[in-house]
């Protein structure tokens, strides 16, 4: 226990340490505020284009929670249909099984273990650290979403679910592209995009394997649905002879009518578009008479801590459709950005999902503290996940064992004291007195929480 509490203290400090560093980075904070403001206001505008937005939101919440509660039968139905079409399903209970399966697929592909692997954006692939595993097996993995390509070159992790390179400005990107090409790429955004287009076009045509994520699987048709704006997802799922899609096991809907409800909300909540540029509905590999499309289609279904969450009081977090709306309204994310969370998922949903999916990771344990519980996330969530209540539940479940001894004893003594009428009376008198002597109190040396207040804020004055 002693070691746990020490670890907790250390990690809480480390979130604060990382936050302090981020707070000093004015460029980062400007970029985060600008992007999230833009995405947030576009979301509100796009939802106002729906006459029955509230009805759709209620339905989306019901659809997601129904899916999460009957995953066994939906996955069973989907995989039977998908397999009948000629697809192959790989059931991965954890990251090692998932990466192992994909490494085997790459090794067995016509291009072999050293294949060029063109990869579309996939949060699930980030969860399992796929790129490192494939690279160490000799594959040449290249991220093809523009934002992901940028952070791959920078050797960083995504800092936002839908805008992974939000923290980079065009000058930093020009440096990365110049280093990648060996020729000067100017810091002009259109030129940077053109460079990425040419560079990645070669990768698409050379790729032996394409890897993408999955937004939704459709049980009744055996389909997978993939939404994206750039066209890299279409490239990855159309040009290589092998397509591997990685799916968190909860990303499933029953039928096309349910898919329609979700599609009406996903892009609006994410970027404020009515639909993303490409809504791809993939139903099996290439068929007779088609001249392209993958001959082999694989879906890796990832558990990765989800089944444990299903049995917990946090199962509603699995309703998440990865739109990022909660990040865009979160006042904490706004100040510090995504890297401070040191997790694939940042912002409110990251603070909820990370400790649930990685219960044994001490650095994930502090994340529920990174919230003022203001509730903006819950309000924005298109599938009505009670995010701030889940953060509170995580604290309630874990604090009594994992908090520092000082904190546990502090609350215990405080609550015992304040349950006595006399002490309550004395506290009242002392508070009144204290409010009149704040000038003196302010000068007293203070540590811990009083010190944290006093360092940058005045004490309250008498009213």
């Amino acid at each position: 226990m002693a070691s746990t509490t020490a670890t907790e203290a250390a990690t809480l400090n480390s979130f604060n340490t990382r936050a302090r560093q981020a707070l000093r980075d004015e460029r980062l904070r400007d970029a985060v505020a600008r992007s999230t403001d833009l995405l947030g206001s576009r979301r509100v505008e796009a939802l106002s284009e729906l006459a029955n937005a509230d009805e759709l939101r209620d339905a989306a919440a019901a659809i997601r929670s129904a899916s999460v509660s009957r995953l066994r039968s939906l996955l069973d139905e989907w995989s039977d249909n998908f397999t009948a079409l000629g697809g192959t399903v790989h059931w991965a209970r954890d990251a090692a099984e998932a990466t192992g399966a994909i490494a085997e697929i790459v090794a067995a592909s016509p291009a072999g273990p050293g294949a060029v692997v063109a990869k579309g954006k996939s949060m699930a692939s980030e969860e399992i650290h796929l790129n490192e595993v494939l690279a160490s097996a000799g594959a040449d993995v290249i991220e093809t979403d523009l934002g992901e390509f940028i952070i791959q070159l920078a050797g960083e992790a995504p800092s936002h679910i839908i805008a992974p390179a939000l923290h980079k400005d065009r000058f930093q990107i020009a440096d990365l592209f110049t280093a990648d090409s060996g020729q000067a790429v100017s810091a002009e955004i259109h030129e940077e995009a053109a460079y990425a287009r040419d560079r990645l076009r070669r990768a698409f045509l050379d790729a032996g394997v394409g890897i993408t994520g999955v937004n939704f699987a459709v049980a009744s048709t055996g389909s997978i649905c993939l939404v994206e704006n750039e066209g890299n997802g279409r490239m990855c799922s159309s040009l290589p002879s092998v397509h591997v899609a990685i799916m968190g096991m909860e990303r499933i809907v029953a039928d096309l009518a349910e898919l329609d409800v979700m599609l009406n909300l996903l892009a609006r909540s994410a970027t404020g578009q009515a639909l993303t540029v490409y809504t791809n509905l993939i139903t099996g590999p290439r068929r007779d008479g088609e001249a392209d499309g993958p001959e082999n289609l694989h879906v890796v279904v990832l558990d990765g801590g989800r089944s444990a969450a299903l049995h917990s009081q946090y199962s509603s977090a699995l309703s998440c459709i990865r739109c990022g709306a909660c990040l865009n309204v979160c006042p904490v994310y706004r100040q510090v950005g995504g890297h401070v969370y040191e997790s694939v998922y940042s912002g409110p949903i990251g603070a909820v999902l990370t400790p649930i999916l990685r219960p044994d990771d001490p650095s994930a344990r502090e994340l529920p503290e990174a919230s003022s519980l203001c509730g903006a996330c819950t309000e924005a969530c298109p599938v009505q996940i009670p995010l701030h209540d889940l953060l509170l539940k995580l604290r309630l479940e874990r604090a009594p064992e994992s908090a520092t001894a000082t904190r546990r004893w502090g609350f215990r003594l405080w609550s015992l004291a304040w349950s006595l009428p006399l002490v309550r009376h004395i506290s009242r008198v002392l508070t009144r007195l204290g409010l009149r002597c704040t000038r003196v109190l302010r000068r007293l040396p203070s540590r811990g929480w009083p010190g944290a207040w006093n360092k940058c804020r005045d004490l309250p004055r008498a009213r």
Partner: protein
Amino acid sequence: MNAHNPKSAFLTRLPEGEATQPPPTPVAQYVSDRKGTQAFIAAWGALGGTSQIASAAEAAVAVKTYSRGRGDILASPGAVEGLVPDLTWPDCGRQAAAAAGVGVVRAEAAAQATGSVIIRSDTNLGRSVSLLPPACVFVIDESTIMESLGAYLRRLSALPSQLVAVTGPSRSADIESTLVIGVHGPGEVHALIIR
């Protein structure tokens, strides 16, 4: 179920789930003052797509006119009656297709609410024609313009290996939240609506 079967081993870890009523799936209602072809053209145009209405007899000429200055025309067979393209998919091969200037494909339907064009891999012998060239012409039969993608999905019986709703030109806002058009897919999209 067999415990050595990976699927059963995976699924048995999940809760059985109660047999519940299926959740409601309301149809989205869109706030719009336009209807029909004009609504589609307005929504498609707002995304950066261009459009034109033509008769079946005018279609081939319309494609030629649009393609002038844009490079070789790559078409899937039968996309436009009477059109003689520079390259025909798939006979031309992928390398040539990738070098073409304009792809011409037949659309299955279009959705007015979102400005989307729906294309299928079975009717165009695959996926490359509308993907590789920097410009794409979607040939849409006006009678197939419907309210929404949802309306199309809900009456669908058989799915092709790939069905795509294309909603405007390829785009990205990954650098400084600045919109860039034509990142990987076609940056110029033209709706040729056949009356």
